[in-house]
């Protein structure tokens, strides 16, 4: 049965926006958690050290890695879209070959 797959920019924008917002959410939560105080000073300090070293000491690499996937995904999507925003596809489970 014939179907239409649509490479509209709304889908791409949804993916980009959700990943970026989720990244901001995680970094924001991590920033807030640096200020959490537990009744045991050692616990408080070990938490701060762990969050700080994991999130903020390597922030540039984290952003670069996420950015790389977003850019490659977006460029690939736009290039694919360049071949036509709508394509007819079938619901066949695979392609028959001889």
């Amino acid at each position: 049965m014939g179907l239409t797959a649509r490479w509209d920019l709304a889908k791409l924008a949804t993916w980009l926006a959700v990943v970026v917002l989720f990244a901001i959410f995680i970094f924001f939560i991590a920033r807030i958690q640096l200020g959490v105080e537990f009744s045991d000073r050692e616990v408080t300090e070990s938490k701060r050290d762990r969050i700080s070293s994991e999130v903020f000491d390597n922030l540039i690499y984290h952003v670069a890695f996420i950015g790389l996937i977003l850019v490659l995904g977006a460029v690939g999507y736009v290039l694919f879209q360049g071949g036509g925003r709508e394509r007819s596809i079938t619901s066949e489970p695979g392609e028959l070959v001889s």
Partner: protein
Amino acid sequence: MVLDTLIDIMYFVNGLVWGLPAIIVLLGTGLAVTLLLGFMQIRYFGTIVRNMRWKGRKGGGEVHPFKIWAAVMGATVGVGNIAGVGTAVALGGPGALFWMFLTGLFGMALKAVEVTLGVKYRKMKADGSVVEGGTPYYIRQVPFIGPILAALFALFAFIAAPGIGNMVQSSNVAFGASFVAESYGFDPGIARWLVGIVLTVFVALVVLGGIRRIAEVATYLVPFMATWYILAGLGLFIMFAGNFVDAIVTVLRGAVAPLEVAKTTASMAGSPEAAAGGILGWTTYEAIRYGVARGLFSNEAGLGSAPNAYAYGESDHPGRQGFYGMFEVFMDTLVICMVTGLSIILTGAYTTGLTGAPLAMEAFNRAYGPLAPLIIGVALMLFAFTTLLTWAWYGEVNWIYFWCNVLKLPETPMRWIWRVLWVILILPAAVLAREYFTVIWDFADTANGLMMIPNLIAVVVLAPVAIALLADFARRYRELSS
């Protein structure tokens, strides 16, 4: 010197592909796909369950779809469902379970997309036999860089498979056996040798028969092992039913606010001195970080592993296999991981300061006493054994793609080289101490994480195809059912 630098680079990359950035892109993509599919995994949950009863169709694939599903479940449900959840709760607190649950929910959609693409872009003969099928075959559809991404994916996958799919699992089966043997007064060293030899013979018999035999064996083993573990968990839930409301409140509190509890030791647990061990604390960030990480790495949504097997299942519509994929993640993360996690919270074992498999063991010990090593030991062995079988196929598909499709080497000898290699790696991994293999395993683990990059790019580029197919299948199946 050069080797040290290479190892440092490997660990740096490992931190990226198994760390925070990977969590963000994987869960973010899962959430985006969930939105684009209009929360299909919730709206069509009844259809997802009913789809499991589909009888299959000759001529549209090689293996019955339930058998393929069982084989994939065998790979997905692994030691991570016990030890990984224990680690998540130890490092992220009870709140990690809430975030793990959400990860499973969004992972269902992401898995459905990649599995649908795996079936859509396979090539079959008229008799239904699959000539080409698996993750690299849809990755290569990406314009310009697709063939390079597909080759990279295949390379990462067949490097990862012998390490994380074979040697780690052989070691885990042997560890589970030696653990059970030691608990009942037998020599753990002899148990490891015995298990290593038996495992080599069994795996050889199964893996040399290809995907059909792997799926056939999984059809019997996987429902048994899942039932074994779920029933043990349900028994524990009944014994500790009085703590249920408190446990859920603790999980929800820990999910959104820092949590502090009195620390106990395993030996003091339940005694009046229980609060004498200081405090344990978890931040919300840790609950998210470890809950999401262990959830994602348990259900493998977005890594591109499962389509390598689903592509060989009988099918009348690519969306149908996508629905099988959703049920797979549901069972893995929303059922089996939750059994482990809730057992740890209900019994109060999370306050002991233990982590990983010993934490899960402590929870079952509080419910079942001397039977606990048997319950966990058998579950660990079965979970690892089935992972060992199906990963042999995941590796083989990608090994063949790389050497025969990209580099044009002859297929039959290369297929046999892979299968023999797979079998001979089992015994040393089962018998020798883990320290001998640490760097090799970490290298394989890094390759496993790297699989995510080409797969996610392809998933994003081809998502409109999968979304159209899944929506079409859902609509038609509902029409047919009503």
